[in-house]
């Protein structure tokens, strides 16, 4: 890359990568025994690159095929979500969290609504709580289907077969969510003290029908990939995250559980009706790419079990505290609250500071992907570039959440 280009475009990450290569060469590290220079190449992956699942950009320094250094660059999808909160009332802001981690909108909305409820001291109705769990777990399955599907698409042996199987089945979940909320991805379904609509007639039966068929679908996925020798070779023992890394980098969600850390907010910081539900935490042993894949598959089965229990215990009653009438204003007392929700990708938290007015004074997201991405330089360095793609796919990043 010519120096002129670097000088005209303000690109600090590229400048940094190039300066590190130049520094290493000057220090003599870049030469081999005979004094021949082994050239390192700075490669720009993304922001438009199919394997980055969005607009993640990685400035990768390569020595042949080996990754020597990685500098992640983010912010291409920044839509000022935190600043927007300061200009909207608490109610007006409800649709916005959907658009952070757009693959799991229900979960994100719940995270925000739960924080405001804690701040304002609102207790949702029992029926609403159960419906919320159903929606969140359905969305978790849908989200894991996207995660595993696109991950397998990154690995060449299966081509794009698996991703289409998974998207085909995800459609059925989106149909259910649409029937309940009116939207397929940007739901705007949660309200303070409940949910917007009660379940429509026949919804429960439709949901049961889907869950009946679901184990067969999972079986199909497993039989497709887990007997594939190339798939296994590309996954086993690659991109290991140790338990110490999990602690140091505050990694949460399936990525932490794949390393054997039993951290799941549904258990460690229980909320809603989760304490009454019976489900297992799925833990990996090695923390490699394969474990991260397998944990997600197993979690889908657990989510199914949770939804079935919820459908059995679904109580009668209102889905909303009080009436839902204009002007939809709530004014929480001054103070600051942080609550978090176990999102498909980890701990999705919201920190809200209230000054007693109708608008949040300050809102901050704790996004799991933003935090999980921090380990990338450490995780990818020393791998082959093709493995780096597999590893980054297995981390399940959603850039809408990272950039906010």
């Amino acid at each position: 890359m010519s120096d002129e280009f670097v000088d005209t475009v303000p690109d600090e990450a590229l400048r940094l990568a190039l300066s590190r290569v130049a520094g290493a060469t000057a220090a003599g590290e870049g030469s081999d025994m005979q004094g021949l220079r082994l050239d390192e190449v700075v490669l720009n992956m993304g922001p438009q690159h199919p394997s980055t699942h969005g607009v993640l950009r990685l400035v990768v320094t390569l020595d042949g095929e080996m990754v020597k250094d990685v500098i992640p660059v983010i912010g291409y999808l920044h839509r000022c979500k935190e600043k927007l909160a300061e200009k909207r009332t608490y109610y007006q802001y409800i649709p916005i969290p959907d658009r952070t981690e757009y693959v799991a909108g229900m979960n994100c909305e719940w995270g925000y609504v739960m924080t405001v409820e804690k701040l304002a001291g609102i207790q949702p109705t029992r029926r609403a709580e159960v419906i919320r769990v159903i929606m969140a777990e359905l969305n978790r399955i849908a989200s894991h289907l996207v995660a595993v599907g696109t991950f397998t698409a990154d690995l060449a042996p299966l081509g794009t077969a698996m991703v289409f199987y998974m998207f085909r089945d995800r459609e059925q979940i989106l149909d259910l969510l649409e029937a309940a909320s009116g939207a397929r991805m940007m739901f705007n379904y949660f309200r303070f003290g409940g949910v917007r609509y009660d379940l429509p007639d026949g919804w429960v039966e439709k949901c049961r029908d889907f869950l009946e068929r679901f184990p067969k679908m999972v079986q199909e996925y497993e039989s497709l990939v887990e007997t594939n020798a190339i798939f296994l070779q590309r996954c086993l023992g690659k991109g290991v995250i140790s338990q110490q890394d999990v602690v140091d980098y505050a990694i949460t969600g399936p990525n932490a559980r794949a390393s054997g850390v039993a951290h799941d907010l549904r258990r460690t910081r229980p909320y809603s009706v989760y304490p009454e539900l019976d489900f297992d935490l799925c833990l990996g042993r090695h923390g490699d790419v394969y474990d991260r894949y397998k944990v997600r598959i197993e979690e889908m089965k657990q989510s199914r079990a949770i939804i079935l229990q919820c459908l059995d215990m679904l109580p009668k009653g209102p889905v909303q505290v009080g009436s839902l009438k204009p002007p939809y204003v709530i004014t929480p007392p001054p103070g600051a609250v942080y609550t978090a929700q176990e999102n498909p990708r980890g701990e999705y938290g919201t920190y809200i500071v209230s000054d007693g007015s109708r608008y949040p004074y300050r809102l901050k997201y704790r996004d799991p992907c933003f935090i999980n991405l921090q380990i990338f330089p450490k995780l990818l360095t020393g791998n082959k570039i093709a493995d780096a793609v597999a590893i980054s796919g297995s981390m399940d990043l959603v850039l809408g959440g990272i950039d906010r």
Partner: protein
Amino acid sequence: MGIEIGSVRLSLDDLAARVAQEFAGELTDVSIQEPDTIVARLECSKLHPVARRLHDLAEIAYDSLNWIAAVDYRTHFESVYHLYSYATNTYLEVHVEVPRAKAVVETVCDIWPAADWHEREAWDMMGIRYEGHPDLRRILLKDDWIGHPLRKDYVDLAENHPNV
């Protein structure tokens, strides 16, 4: 090696008392936020040594940094550190007041690697400078952006982002 969550069983009151005693004169206004969070204030100048000791505490170590938030209270900034202890399965929220005139805080990157991007974000959005940070660049906004948009007195002008 295995990390057990909640292996140390202590009531939140006992834990808060222990933290308050261990850091007497440093962590002030120690209070409890149900169900599992201890909230405390800390003077800006004492941050780094106290953070180091919190990380290395025997038995109840706050070994993980969950997130850092920067808040603009108009008269001053606040840098909020949300720590998590795997052993006790509790959180500690440390509020550090940062003067507006000299918005500089020492970095905690060397203690919790997770602090890296949070500090960059706080610098990007709020303009708090984390001294000693190895790579304090903008993270979400463009490299040539002018100003820090989450400040309450930020005015958005076209000149602030010439290349957008």
